[in-house]
């Protein structure tokens, strides 16, 4: 179907005019979106984009390198806390602080990657899980990090206060554009990483680490690098997340957040960038918006409220989102293990050869 005749065709960003056209449409749509939406939806979009950054990074680790991580909330927390503390305690401007925080997260990723070299399956799962829990508890127990009561993010000043350039972003709208630009850069970065020598080494490790080692890929370097890159993305996402929320405490970064992250990429499609974007958007919408006002949902809203009153409890009705998430997780795995990306591929194949 898509025959490639030259190396350049394999690495080019837009494979065809159609893709270029739709990419431009998407960009125009994203940049003009604030014209059509209310403030609450901008907040939601900010959250979605933060999760997109994280999901894209996690997909490099899980989808492309084939490792399992149930501790990404830990890296996310490191990014958030490091960014805010570097800005408030040391007075570093926003962009250097964000990048520094991401490198701190990447360093922790490297550290976690070292035991991961020898572990696989359930052993790797418990090691990453323990890492996430440990980070949450360490943050909760040290006063430097604000303890259990949490931290408040400072004003988002993207200028350099020391030189007198101040540009403080206060509204969700201005944050939207900042996060949008960073998200686009990070996604482009991820697409390009997967086309370099490094990305191909990751994929080779996923397919068979022994075969990869035989053809000369240094497993030590590339596995730890994969953890570090993924943690770098999580760090950037965490730093932005701090400012989207404005206030956060250690409980924000609990075990369930790591599960949500994993679900985002699994639902979207492992190893696919577009899939992780779709998955992040879908899961964030499901978790934060879909079941906010249950009685307002058309047709089934009243029905659900009635059931709750009759047999279940009305206070626990918010848990509907957890139930829906559980159903999505199980359903995707049973019916379409490739996620949204798999559905897309099947649709594309069907229509390419349509009349036949």
């Amino acid at each position, binding site marked *: 179907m898509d025959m490639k005749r030259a190396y350049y065709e394999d690495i080019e960003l837009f494979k065809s005019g159609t893709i270029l056209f739709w990419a431009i449409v998407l960009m125009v749509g994203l940049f003009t979106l604030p014209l059509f939406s209310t403030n609450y939806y901008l907040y939601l979009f900010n959250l979605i984009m933060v999760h997109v950054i994280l999901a894209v990074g996690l997909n490099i680790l*899980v989808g492309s390198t084939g490792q*399992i991580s149930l501790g990404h909330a830990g890296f996310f927390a490191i990014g958030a806390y490091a960014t805010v503390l570097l800005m408030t305690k040391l007075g570093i401007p926003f962009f250097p602080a964000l990048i520094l925080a991401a490198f701190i997260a990447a360093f922790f990723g490297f550290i976690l990657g*070292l*035991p991961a070299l*020898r*572990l696989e*399956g*359930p*052993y790797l*799962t*418990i*090691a990453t*899980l*323990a*890492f996430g*829990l*440990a980070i949450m*508890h*360490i943050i909760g*127990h040290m006063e430097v990090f604000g303890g259990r009561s949490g931290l408040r993010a400072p004003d988002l000043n993207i200028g350099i206060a020391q030189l007198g350039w101040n540009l403080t972003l206060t509204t969700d709208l201005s944050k939207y554009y900042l996060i949008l630009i960073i998200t686009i850069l990070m996604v482009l970065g991820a697409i390009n990483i997967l086309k370099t020598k490094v990305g191909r080494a990751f994929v080779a490790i996923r397919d068979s680490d*022994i075969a990869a080692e035989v053809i000369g890929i240094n497993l030590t370097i590339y596995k730890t690098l994969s953890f570090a890159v993924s943690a770098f993305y999580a760090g950037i996402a965490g730093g932005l997340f701090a400012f989207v929320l404005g206030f956060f405490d250690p409980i924000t970064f609990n*075990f369930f957040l790591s*599960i949500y992250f*994993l*679900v985002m990429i*699994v639902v979207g499609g*492992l190893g696919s960038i577009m899939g992780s974007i779709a998955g992040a958007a879908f899961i964030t919408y499901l978790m934060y918006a879909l079941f906010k006002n249950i009685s307002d949902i058309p047709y089934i809203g009243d029905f659900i409220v009635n059931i*709750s009153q009759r*047999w*279940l*409890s009305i*206070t*626990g*009705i918010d*848990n*509907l*989102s*957890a*139930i829906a*998430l*559980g*159903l*999505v*997780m*199980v359903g*995707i*795995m*049973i019916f379409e*293990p490739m996620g949204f990306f798999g559905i897309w591929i099947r649709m594309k194949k069907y229509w390419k050869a349509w009349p036949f």
Partner: protein
Amino acid sequence: MPFEHLLVEGLAMGACYGLFGLAVVMIYKTSEVINFAAGEMAMFSTFIVFHMLTFYHWPFWAALLAAFIFAAVLGALVQYIFLRPAKNPTLLSLIVITLGVEMLLMGFASWKWGAEQQEFSLPISYMVTYEPVKGFVISQWAMAVFIIAAIIMAFLYVFFNKTNLGTAMRATQQNKHAAKIMGINTDRVFAFSWGFSSVIGLVAAVLLTTKTILDPQFMLEPFLKAFAAAVLGGMMSIPGVLIGGAIMGLLENFFGYAWPAWKPITAFVVIVLVLCVRPSGLFAKHWVKKV
């Protein structure tokens, strides 16, 4: 607090973790699934006991019996509805399925019983203590835990070595296809091992509620610790998981006494350190993949 007391309480807690770890190992042994839903399955069954006691005023043993039956059916149903239809699942997809079941059960439990903590305890207490030997205090709860753990261990030993079903389960674990050729209905073996594991989980959860509280999230941390105990024991061996559980319980109690703030994570840090040295746990031969 005296040393003996910490030791006994730690061992009792460890026995609970080990017992619950058995529920994890049992499933991993037969079907190579890490059951992340084990904690929530046990939690849900414990809520059935609570519900029967509080709303229908059943006698305690009848409620417990009903919950046992419910737990067995729940385990088998989870395997039948959620895991059997998955085609050629990878490790990750199995993890995601069981995590999904966990979310489902936790969501339903919070919907039904609310997120607040409930009053529930066994007719045994850890306040009542005995002193069989001078200076050696043991609480009623710890005694019950030791006795129940010993009974279940003995039962499992006999079950796996002497009964047909136990032999079939071991055969399925060693080689699924060969077991099928020998006329073992492996699907039924899987369903049975899930039901069995769910019942063991319920026993552990009921014992744990006496020590902690009852709410929809109360089994989350014990599950993670039981999983860690199972990993420490090598995921495959039944004595290994009990020793792993004992190590977890003792570590937690002694470190928790020394540094209370760090109690929840000491055990996990130790696990990671142990895994760095022995990547397949303490009691398993290092598993080498065939090319």
